């Protein structure tokens, strides 16, 4: 056994914690190596010196001083330890990190959905002159059919562009910033929201009866398809919506597409739905003037 290794193991040799074979090897080495033996003896002497240091007594008035410290324990500290003992509970860092990540994901997820943002223009007026409000599932259509409130969870709004037939487009759309955006997953607005300047149910029904303009025809197609109008989006200064967002039961998705072909021309082919999909379908339709 080499001297370096022996010196490294001397501490354990003194404590007698080495296995028998290693202990015997060291014992043999110490008999032959004067340098290592000297180091062993001096270390052992030092350890014995430490063990013979004895113990000290605490001052006689130690208990009284502890009492003084306890009694001088400030009231704030007492309240803290009495009522806020939960702060002393040790929570694993992994759990804290998981909770923090979940909160962060929740915040980010809710902030990055622009379709959930609402920019409201009071008294948004549609082409029929009626203010339109977002519809809810419990609202009845002009045909009295109750629509279910279903939130599209698996498929995002399908973007479509509809080039309106020229003679059916009463007014050209103007350009500018979008002033109303209400759409997207679960975008629901109350029926009676006066601060949004939306119409009454009666107004809505008037809209859906149609008066020959493309928007009324589309609304009627939505109604026939058991769907609902969720929102309209306007550009600044325009009286006609540039976008509408609607929701259609998936079973009526293709019939609805067929119906709006009579109102305008789809600029892009509408995608098919997954076969297994059973929920409602949201469509965000851009209404393009043919002029």
């Amino acid at each position, binding site marked *: 056994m080499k001297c370096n290794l022996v010196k490294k193991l001397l501490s354990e040799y003194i404590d007698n914690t080495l296995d028998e074979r290693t202990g015997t090897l060291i014992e043999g080495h110490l008999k032959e190596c004067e340098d290592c033996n000297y180091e062993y003896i001096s270390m052992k002497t030092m350890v014995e010196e430490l063990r013979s240091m004895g113990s000290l*007594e605490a001052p006689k008035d130690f208990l009284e001083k502890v009492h003084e410290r306890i009694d001088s324990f400030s009231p704030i500290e007492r309240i803290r330890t009495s009522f806020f003992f939960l702060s002393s509970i040790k929570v694993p860092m992994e759990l804290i990190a998981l909770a923090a990540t979940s909160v962060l994901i929740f915040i980010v997820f809710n902030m990055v959905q622009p379709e959930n943002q609402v920019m409201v223009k009071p008294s948004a007026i549609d082409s029929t002159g009626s203010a339109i409000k977002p519809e809810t599932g419990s609202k009845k259509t002009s045909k009295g059919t109750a629509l279910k409130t279903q939130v599209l969870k698996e498929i995002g709004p399908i973007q479509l562009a509809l080039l309106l037939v020229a003679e059916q487009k009463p007014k050209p759309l103007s350009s500018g910033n979008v002033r109303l955006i209400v759409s997207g997953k679960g975008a629901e607005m109350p029926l009676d929201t006066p601060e949004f300047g939306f119409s009454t149910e009666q107004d809505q029904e008037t809209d859906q009866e149609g008066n020959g303009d493309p928007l009324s025809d589309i609304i009627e197609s939505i109604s026939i398809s058991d769907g609902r109008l969720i929102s309209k989006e306007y550009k600044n200064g325009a009286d006609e919506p540039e976008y509408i967002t609607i929701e259609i039961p998936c079973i009526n998705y293709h019939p609805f597409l067929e119906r709006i072909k009579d109102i305008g021309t789809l600029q892009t082919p509408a995608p098919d739905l997954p076969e297994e999909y059973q929920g409602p379908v949201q469509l965000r339709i851009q209404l393009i003037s043919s002029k």
Partner: protein
Amino acid sequence: MNEETANKTGDDHELVKSFQSGNRIAFDELVLRHKDRVFNLCYRFMGDHQEAEDCAQDVFLKVYRSLKRFRFESSFYTWLYRITVNTCKNRLKSSGYRGIKKSSLLANPENDKDYQPMERGDEGKNPIAELEKMERIRLVQNAIDSLPVGQKDVVILRDIEGLSYEEIINITGYRLGTLKSKLSRARHELRERLGRII
């Protein structure tokens, strides 16, 4: 057996239970039982009587605050030692304490110990031999003081307090291998520093 008698004769476990059920005298009994060992341990860490006393008081103050939530996951003795070691190590690491020690050494570099410990059972012995022994103890204590905190704890617990490896592991949380290597390094350091007097 009434409660007072039980507190005097009962073990730590019973005293802790008694304190947790509202008997403050049980805490006093625990202090009286352990104050010398806690004070001694603090002194070996701090190397200063006043600091050791403050530290030991801190330890029992912490015990008083936390004892109601003690769940007997370890023995009271191990828990008390763990608090003591951590309190001492934290104080040694604090910049305030380092400043005090430095200024004390600058003021009196030859004798930075303002307290010569009186050992139990010293009475009636040869005064010269006792003086020599005290001087050796002072030099050994100086050597211990000069060790890094991470080596000081193992050498104090093992060689001065005489605890087993297992007890030290329970108190410090070190692994066995870490404990052995720290102890080996600490002993080599001390041997080198005390080579002239041993």
